[in-house]
């Protein structure tokens, strides 16, 4: 019961056959991801079905999330960045719902698996690279050559810029993954203390167990904050990187 890693275990639900040497399995992670996509789609479609001028609760919820993401995109990638709005909005809602699914007791936190977050980050950086080269051609490489640098240290600065660019998907994915993983482990460890105290110390344990219980409640609140905040941080960094694709050479 006190194993804090157990909650991240992937459980196969059914097999989809084999490709090459490896088995393709539909796991609980796949289930939760399909659930998140279904929930976001249903929510936005149901909420905008009536299209009332004075929005109801559901409609204003969806309108607020639209406004929020739109203002984030505008403020960090400018109005040209709005062409990426569908992409950024899908990313934000997907990550947000997955993070919040993790807060349901007995739920599964898909974003605590680095392969998921890295795939999302690679998607973002791939978009930046493909769009940058498609829009600006080789001019996109100006991103790596800052202006106003003396020629003799230019190769060094360029190498550092390239490594800095390559580190972006790593920092983007590690940040989301580590936050979710660490938060859920901490939560589980503190919750485990309650049971251990109660079973180990008897009546005294029940009294002292109030302390980790209070901590668990506080951490649950913090985890909700982290879940929303990390979705937002991922989104705003996506916008900042997309801005580089729109305007290289700054």
């Amino acid at each position, binding site marked *: 019961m006190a194993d804090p890693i157990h909650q991240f275990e992937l459980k196969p639900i059914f097999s989809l056959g084999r490709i090459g040497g490896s088995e393709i399995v539909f796991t609980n992670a796949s289930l939760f991801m399909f659930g998140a996509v279904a929930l976001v789609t249903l929510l936005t479609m149901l909420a905008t079905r009536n299209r009332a001028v004075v929005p109801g609760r559901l409609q204003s919820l969806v309108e607020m999330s639209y406004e929020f993401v739109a*203002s*984030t995109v505008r403020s*960090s990638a400018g109005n040209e960045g709005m062409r990426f709005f569908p992409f950024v909005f899908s990313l934000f809602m997907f990550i947000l719902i997955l993070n919040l699914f993790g807060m349901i007791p007995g739920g599964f936190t898909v974003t605590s698996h680095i392969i998921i977050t890295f795939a999302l980050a690679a998607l973002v950086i791939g978009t930046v690279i493909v769009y940058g080269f498609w829009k600006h051609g080789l001019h996109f490489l100006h991103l790596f050559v800052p202006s106003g640098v003396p020629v003799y240290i230019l190769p060094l600065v360029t190498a*550092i810029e390239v*490594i*800095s660019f390559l580190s972006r998907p790593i920092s983007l994915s590690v*940040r989301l993954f*580590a936050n979710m993983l660490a938060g859920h482990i901490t939560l589980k460890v503190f919750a485990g203390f309650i049971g251990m105290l109660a079973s180990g110390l008897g009546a005294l344990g029940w009294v002292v167990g109030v302390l980790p219980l209070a901590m668990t409640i506080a951490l649950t609140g913090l985890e909700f904050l982290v879940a929303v905040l990390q979705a937002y941080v991922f989104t705003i960094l996506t916008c900042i990187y997309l801005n580089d694709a729109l305007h290289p050479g700054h």
Partner: protein
Amino acid sequence: MAAGFAMNGDDAGSEGGRGSGPTSEGDLSARLKRLEAQLDQRREAAPGPRQRVEDSTSGPSAIGRAFRLSTEFVAGVIAGGGLGWLFDRLLGTSPWGLIVFLLLGFAAGTFNVVRAAGAQKSSDASGGSKPQKE
């Protein structure tokens, strides 16, 4: 990234022409233009929420900011190390590629941190009129 924040002002002005679509009815396009102009005015007049969004880029807490900066640094070192390892593997120059690229990765990580912190600073500065609460 600091430049990215600074250039929003220029962009807001250049969107006026977007509303006039290919429609032939002058009335409709005039109405669209008027709506666009009104929206522009709204956006200009209400910088409040936008500024607030920028201020909280790094999260509301010092922990959030510290976490952001530390991952930026670690990611730089990892990227440099990985690149060096790949370099050595492909060219058989072990261990020189790893040494050189790890050092470069260290520099890139430091650079990342400075840039991330600088972006926070400059967004603070652009919100100038509003007192910063830390």
